[in-house]
């Protein structure tokens, strides 16, 4: 006796009216959920420019460029070599300077295209004696805040705090810095040299 294939017919009817399982992705955007580890992104107000992310990055996707003449530090993040491991976010000293976003889509034909790079620029504090890099100004202020009242023991923090309220001009460079020059923005090496070598 011929039996109608009820199970197959109901399945066919059901699949006729249910929407397709396949995504309509390139036509409709897909937004990854918040926990997805996408490409990292700098937050310029929170970043202090310490360069921890550069040291920690396993693929060396972040490059640090110091311009001592202009007093500008650049952190250049290359998305193409980033492996989205999240070390930069984890080790960031402010915990907010760099964060992994949920963005994941990038397709380029040229590796030097501008959308591949993200850059943060920070002002540098430069040694008045030798012209070497001390740290970023935001970094010094961040450390000052962490130290609290103890920070006023160190001239660099003091000068950096002054600079917030009034313009502090760099002093004229001498051949040799003396003990009286210690209340100036001086790098640790020069400070040590002065303390050890300078005679009264």
């Amino acid at each position, binding site marked *: 006796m011929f039996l109608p294939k009820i199970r197959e017919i109901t399945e066919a009817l059901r699949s006729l009216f249910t929407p397709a399982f396949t995504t309509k992705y390139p036509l409709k955007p897909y*937004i990854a959920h918040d926990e997805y580890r*996408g490409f990292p992104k700098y937050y310029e107000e929170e970043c202090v420019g310490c360069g921890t992310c550069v040291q920690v990055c*396993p693929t060396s996707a972040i490059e640090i460029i110091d311009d001592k003449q202009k007093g500008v530090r650049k952190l250049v993040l290359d998305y193409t070599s980033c492996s989205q491991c999240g070390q930069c976010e984890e080790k960031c000293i402010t915990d907010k300077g760099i964060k992994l976003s949920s963005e994941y889509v990038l*397709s*380029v034909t040229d590796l030097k295209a501008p959308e591949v790079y993200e850059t943060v620029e920070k002002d540098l504090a430069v040694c008045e004696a030798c012209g070497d890099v001390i740290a970023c100004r935001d970094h010094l202020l961040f450390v000052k805040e962490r130290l609290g009242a103890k920070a006023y023991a160190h001239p660099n923090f003091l000068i950096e705090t002054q600079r917030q309220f009034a313009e502090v001009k760099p002093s004229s460079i001498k051949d040799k810095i003396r003990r009286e020059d210690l209340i100036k923005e001086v790098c640790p090496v020069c400070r040590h040299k002065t303390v050890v070598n300078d005679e009264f």
Partner: protein
Amino acid sequence: MFKTLLNKCFKKSIWVYHTNTGACNGCDIEVINALTPYYDAERFGIKLVGTPRHADALLVCGPVTRQVVPALKCLYDSVPDPKLIIAIGSCAIGGGIWYNTYNVIGGVDKVLPVDYFIPGCPPRPEAILYGIAVALGLVKKKVSPVILKEESPEKWMTF
């Protein structure tokens, strides 16, 4: 609109050949994932083929190790012209975490002329689909990645 889309899709159905030049299998899994029914790359006419001689495009995953260079060159020669080389994953682009190891010479672009780079570790299947859709001309290229935007309230206010 549907017809024009179909015409665009099937003007040239890209057949791809998938190679691994020393990857950790992460990108390979994502490439295969893009061919599964959920993402279904075959709706764009993309098909995985078993030999490079049938292929139009070469998907390369992984950093290029020293041993694989002659094989990769041989593979490149056996793909008929015109051909498309797509580097998938951050390893295939610049070496990834093996950028300075002794046995890796770097990204694919040091050996072959690469047409499209899809970064990510591994890239999501959506990112791979997007890269291939850009290559096919289905989607216009965005400068910035996908960002969630709220619809403007003016749209609702006007009658």
